[in-house]
């Protein structure tokens, strides 16, 4: 197992390097640049800006300088569009916000989704099942860009219960709507996967054996059914977790959380090369890491898998 983890980590480094080089080249190939705007800059001003940010060096040198800064100094450079701040500062500001509402949404989605799925599977084809399936389909079809403004309308304008947006680490009332809006559709998917996987497991031989031995039903479910039923859920959760904690542009736009989801999309649209690279590397590294964690969890849960 340990050797497996080491091997995977060793592959991760060239993967990240390739990601950086490809992103860098693709980004520079996109038409326009960080300084193209409604009013074309005078050539001398543009030249000054490009010199300042090293944009007139040959591409290979730019990539090399960038890699050296990132690897040696852990410095992702200054933002092109937010000149007062460095990329490190922007990520340090935005990522904790995204991590908080993303992490909470993940927990909410998993707990609610698994509970709904298990309940629906146990009472298969009863009204409980229909209700659970109904809830999860409803949650699935209501996209978060529709739900978010509705939540603001109801909780802020009509009932005045929650602030309509913004962020504070010390005041959880700012977290509630982002978590609801982000977690529901994931919760629905988790519920559906759990339900079908649970149904399959409940019909398998080892469950019949456990029941035949006279084991109480709740122990059958928790000890023998839940764990194997979680396998497909876990393979789904790895990428979901990464996408949740690296932010949602929809949540950031509707609730003005200051998270990095919007910063990422903006950086692509504004051609803010440095921010775009910084967030790409962050998301890339997290994706690699959590795929590894999922694989390790797999081995732990399923005795049939060995590395």
């Amino acid at each position, binding site marked *: 197992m340990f050797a497996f983890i080491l091997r995977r980590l060793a592959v991760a480094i060239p993967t990240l390097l390739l990601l950086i080089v490809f992103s860098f080249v693709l980004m520079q190939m*996109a*038409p*326009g*640049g960080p*300084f*193209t*705007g*409604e*009013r*074309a*800059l*005078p050539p*001398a*001003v543009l*030249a*000054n*800006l490009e*010199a*300042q*940010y090293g944009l007139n060096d040959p591409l290979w040198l730019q990539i090399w300088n960038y890699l050296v800064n990132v690897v040696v100094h852990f410095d992702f450079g*200054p933002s092109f*569009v*937010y*000149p*007062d*701040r460095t990329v490190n500062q*922007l990520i340090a*500001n*935005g990522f904790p916000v995204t991590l908080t509402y993303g992490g909470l949404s993940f927990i909410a989605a998993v707990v609610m989704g698994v509970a709904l799925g298990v309940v629906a599977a146990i009472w298969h084809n009863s009204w409980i099942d229909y209700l659970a399936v109904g809830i999860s389909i409803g949650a699935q079809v209501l996209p978060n860009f529709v739900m*978010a*403004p509705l939540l*603001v*309308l109801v909780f*802020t*304008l009509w009932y*005045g219960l929650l*602030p*309509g*947006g*913004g*962020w504070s680490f010390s005041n959880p009332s700012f977290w509630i709507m982002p978590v609801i809006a982000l977690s529901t559709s994931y919760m629905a998917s988790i519920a559906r996967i759990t339900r079908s996987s649970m149904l399959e497991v409940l019909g398998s031989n080892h469950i019949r054996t456990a029941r035949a031995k006279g084991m109480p039903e709740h122990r059958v479910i928790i000890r023998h059914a839940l764990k194997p039923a979680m396998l497909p859920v876990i393979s789904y959760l790895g990428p979901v977790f990464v996408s949740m904690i690296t932010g949602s542009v929809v949540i*950031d*736009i*509707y609730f*003005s*959380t*200051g998270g990095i989801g*919007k*910063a990422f999309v903006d950086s692509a*649209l*504004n*051609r803010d090369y440095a921010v775009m690279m910084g967030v790409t590397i962050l998301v890339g590294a997290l994706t690699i890491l959590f795929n590894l964690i999922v694989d390790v969890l797999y081995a732990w849960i399923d005795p049939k898998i060995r590395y």
Partner: protein
Amino acid sequence: MTKLFATTALLTAMAMPAWAVQPAEGETLAENQTYTYWLLDAIKSLDPAKNTDVEGSDALRSLFEGLMIQDAQGEMIPGMAETFEASEDGLTYTFNLREANWSNGDPVTADDFVYAWQRVATPETASEYAWYLELMNIENATQIIAGEMEPDQLGVTALDDRTLQVRLTTPTPYFIKTLSHTTTYPIPRAVVEELGDAWVQPGNIVGNGAYTLASHNLGVEIVFQKNPEYWDAENVLMETVRGVTVNDNNVALTRYQAGELDRVQIPAGQFPRLSEEFPEAAVSVPNGCSYAYIFNLSEKGPEVLKDARVREAMALSLNREVIVDQVLQGGQEPAYSWTHWAIDGFSAPEGGMKDMPMEARMARATELLAEAGYGPDNPVRIQLQYNTDDSHRLLAIAAQQFWRPLGIEIELNNVEWAVHTDRLQNQDFEMARYAWCADYDEATTFLDWFRTTGYNSGKWSNEEYDKLLVDARTAEDTAPLYSRAEEILAEENPAVFVYHYADVDMINPAIKGLPRENLLNTWYAKDLYRVAE
């Protein structure tokens, strides 16, 4: 208020009392003097040399003060400069600064202005607004920006601590009007030299404006507190000013209605409903921007557009009234000139297509197209490029419908913003949506755009037009020259002018002092107060 133009060639001296908004009779101030306004996006920079957008400018006007400020009508009134004198040739201005302090208690000196302006011009600062010094025609600005001269050769000198001299390369009628722009703000030399680029971060930033920065959570909220060191602090009523970012306009409106914001832009199409429901709060005032479809007349442009008759036919047949009244519905004005109708001292030329009934315009357009050899059987085919935005799309579809019956087939080409501007600047388009906003309240801010050496993305060129604008610099009465320039635009149609912008906002009636007659929508938090409801 007196108009201040250097070209009067007299020694102009100015001394006026400071202008301050005070509650009117019968108004009671609210206990809570807080104003919360809406920001569409994060504020990109609080460095006067690096700010490029409206959100940043609104914030900087609270934190800093330039030589001049604007009153509610947009007229220039003394800011840091108590008085000024212009030389007879209009090339030298001398400003006498008032006694004022930075928010850290240090005095504001003429040298802080010299330092700030030199810093804008310095290539290493990489200021995106360095061109503003060229617009002001400050001596040697162009050469310094290009790296051909040292920054200390910029035409700005501190004669003593409170006297600032500025030298221009050419008489500039609008020079005084450029002095309230954020790029011209002074910065505290001592602080900037000590802290470097970090001087603008919360906790470090020192300003000379009516407010100091209390906190700035990027993309969420910026908070300003009244600055007790401000020279006119006794007349500042608003204690706290908050800028709250809401990236979605409709959510912002909901939050306004929930009482979280005092001012918000009204989303497109909702003005008629809201002004009926909230007549006191829904406001539409002219905003100094013009919207147009620019023709590419460069070598890369399509041949058909080089035929002036085709361009004129397109200009004639675009029904701007329908666009304004049925699509935009927010008090915008149909445009038949490039210069915004409300620009100070500008009067649009008389006659022309705006006075023709629509049927006559359509008939004339059909005629012109037929002369050029086009019509429904042999349509003109042109691609119209616009950047991603709902209202641009709606307008483009409307234009497509207006032109189709004449035999002008428009292919819509929607691209993202960066691609759009890149293509505009490289003349990789046929016809493109464009908008221009005034930098100062005078017609050249628009007319300069179409000069042969102007931004002029379509590369239209006309000798008489260029000459008119050069002559205007030294003319006693500029209005007829500007009017003639617009006539040339109307004859040649290098673009179809579509509409003049309006600012369409919901403003909490308890907030007083927000200007309604300032075309550039320049507001100062120090002029605001909240009355008890």
